[in-house]
């Protein structure tokens, strides 16, 4: 039973992370970026930390997990709209500014989080610490069913938008020309990203570079602008990476290295290569 739900969780996370990254790349018109680089999941951890800090660890731990998940997700949607919708409008053609702002946001969220964690009661700290790091060995399976339901509903919405996403990825002027409203689309896509990030972060914590590697590999495997193909290929690459990676870590490396470290290391290198290639061009 445990192994089955773990496998399921890894697939849910793979789907959430790959789809949110693809969506974010589409809406920002930029293929070397991911929600986690922009600080989306750092924001999620910050929200949880604030909840523990203001409610107190004792109150927080008796709250039903379902309620915490729902409320955090709602706040996530509002916060990401507030932070990122203006940024995306203004910086669409300015890749460096977008990335820089994202990195600053991410650092800011992480700094505030660690500030709260420092001034908090050590017992309460234990409540948050579990949520602040990526963990593939100890997954919150209690949330699995609700997370899966949310994920499936969101994926259906994304799938129905696939043709519109193709048009949005052409950039602002072309999207307008073809009769899509990029502002409205950006609004909805940011909501969807916030939901995906909430799902994956609630299950395994923040994974910074996973989405970037997965979508980049998917673009290499299926070089097409069409989301009907890209959505599927990136979900498959994501599932293979996470499930395969976890298998390797458990069976071959006998859990000496956490999977998240390897993914962040490889993903970080990929990000750097893309960034340097982009600058040279």
């Amino acid at each position: 039973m445990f192994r089955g739900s773990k496998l399921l969780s890894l697939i849910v996370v793979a789907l959430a992370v790959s789809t949110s990254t693809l969506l974010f790349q589409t809406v920002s018109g930029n293929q070397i970026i991911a929600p986690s680089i922009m600080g989306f999941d750092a924001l999620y951890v910050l929200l949880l930390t604030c909840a523990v800090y203001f409610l107190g660890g004792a109150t927080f731990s008796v709250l039903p997990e379902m309620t915490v998940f729902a409320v955090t997700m709602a706040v996530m949607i509002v916060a990401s709209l507030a932070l990122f919708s203006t940024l995306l409008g203004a910086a669409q053609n300015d890749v460096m500014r977008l990335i820089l702002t994202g990195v600053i946001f991410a650092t800011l969220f992480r700094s505030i989080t660690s500030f709260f964690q420092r001034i908090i009661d050590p017992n309460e700290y234990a409540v948050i610490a579990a949520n602040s790091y990526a963990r593939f060995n100890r997954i919150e399976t209690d949330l699995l069913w609700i997370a899966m339901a949310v994920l499936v509903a969101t994926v259906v919405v994304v799938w129905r938008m696939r043709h519109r996403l193709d048009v949005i990825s052409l950039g602002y002027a072309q999207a307008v020309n073809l009769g899509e409203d990029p502002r409205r689309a950006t609004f909805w896509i940011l909501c969807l990203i916030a939901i995906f990030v909430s799902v994956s972060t609630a299950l395994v914590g923040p994974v910074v570079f996973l989405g970037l590697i997965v979508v980049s590999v998917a673009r290499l495997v299926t070089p097409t602008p069409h989301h009907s193909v890209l959505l599927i290929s990136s979900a498959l690459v994501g599932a293979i990476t996470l499930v395969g990676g976890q298998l390797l870590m458990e069976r071959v490396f006998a859990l000496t290295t956490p999977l998240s470290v390897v993914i962040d290391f490889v993903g970080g290198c990929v990000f750097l290569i893309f960034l340097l290639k982009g600058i040279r061009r």
Partner: protein
Amino acid sequence: MIRVQNTSYAVSGTTILSDINLEITQGVVTALVGPNGAGKSTLLSLIARINKAQSGQITVDDLTIGDCDDRDLALRLSILTQDNTMGARLTVRDLVSFGRYPHHRGRATADDLATIETAIDRFDLTELADRYLDDLSGGQKQRAFIAMTFAQNTDYILLDEPLNNLDIAASRHLMPLLHDLCADQGKTIIVVLHDLNYAARYADQLVMMRDGQVVAQGTPKEVLTAQNVSDVFQTEADVRIIDGRPMVIV
């Protein structure tokens, strides 16, 4: 009929267009000419709802820009802007195919596919159809974008400096094609042109702009006088009539 009424546009306090009133003649090629910064591209972007005017009203037939459904307008009017950087990596055929999107919204019919192939053929892109846009020269890329606009097959077509990057052969191929589209299919085309002689030779109507205002409108012969050129462009260039059309001696 495209009608612009009392339209003004400003960016952070700087007026780009002030109180423009303009009616675009149906079924002909209208060229917008004027010095850099006159507001030609801005006017085009307002008509195509890429930017939003702060005051005034722009109508395309019975559709009012800003109030009408964007999808309805996409079936009626298309625009090719100057800046065509794309987030996605596309082949020429992918790009041209997107021109049909307003018609099928994702599910291309046999008709759509036929129109796409016609557009590819008409702009000599057959051999380039499966190449990526990133790998093409500026002129080839420009042709692919124009083919996409052509595939969109709207009654009104707005082109912002379509001759950018095109050599003389491609330019002399494109301009008569625009003229034929108007003559044969009753399309109305507005094109921003920098080269006054292309405007004089191929456009039916000229709109001359300076400092966000329309200075003159009419046939090339009426608008392109030595007096107007010297007033608007601040340079003394001789204008001669050759084969009934004005020519600016540069």
